[in-house]
């Protein structure tokens, strides 16, 4: 299965800029479906980025994050070709991870 995570990590000398899009419904648990039944909450709680064995960015999310979440940040200390590992876990125990090369 294709990964739910899409990453673009670009190095600009010392600073690496990371943009991520994740496919996830991010259901709040407050919305009803077409039949009028409540859609249970289903959302990503933790998202982690690690580079060279060190966490570079950690996100803790609630239900207020938009569907198919997007996040952008930058960090120092990596170079082109380094691996960036991205992983998430959601409130139903689901998870996914991927590794991107810094370009």
């Amino acid at each position, binding site marked *: 299965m294709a990964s739910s995570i899409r990453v673009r990590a670009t190095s600009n000398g010392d*600073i690496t800029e990371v943009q991520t899009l994740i496919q996830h419904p*991010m259901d*709040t648990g*407050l919305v009803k479906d077409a039949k009028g039944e409540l859609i249970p909450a289903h959302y990503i*709680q*933790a998202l*982690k980025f690690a580079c060279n064995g*060190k*966490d*570079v*960015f*950690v*996100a*803790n*999310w*609630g*239900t*207020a*994050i*938009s*569907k198919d*979440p*997007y*996040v*952008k*940040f*930058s*960090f*120092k*200390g990596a170079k082109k070709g380094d691996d960036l590992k991205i992983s998430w876990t959601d409130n139903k125990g689901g998870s996914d991870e991927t590794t991107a090369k810094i370009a």
Partner: protein
Amino acid sequence: MTTHTGPHPTRRLILQGAVSVALIGLGNLPFAPVRAAANDKYPEAAFKLKNEADAIKALYGRTAEPSDKIKLDAPEIAENGGVVPISVATTLDKVTSISFFVAENPNALAASYTFPDGTIPAVANRLKMAKTSNMTAIVESDGKLYSATKEVKVTVGGCGG
């Protein structure tokens, strides 16, 4: 319980139980120091609170003061409350975390980001907003809390209502 130092899932299950509070209190379990060092436990309680001030308190244990060194970038008017792009950047030093709160949402805390050494204290993401509300970014810098707030109007149906 035995001295089982299993992989993460096991450890997390153990830690999640109410019993764990008492267990960690004993402080002689092999895994306790490992988890204590990593301050990355999901702040479940803070995400459940309705009121913004309560959520800030639950997450940080103190209150924030406004700062002009935080740049909160949010649209004046959002036509779709489901996707509101918000970004924050700050010139404050030693930033360890940045959190976003939407006062009028069912649960005020939207996101909390941790910044290890070497990560630039800026983040962009997209939030859901139930209705027109104040949006607050809290920046934890050198152990102190600073905030910036901006009102975002949500127009339902895109006709300025």
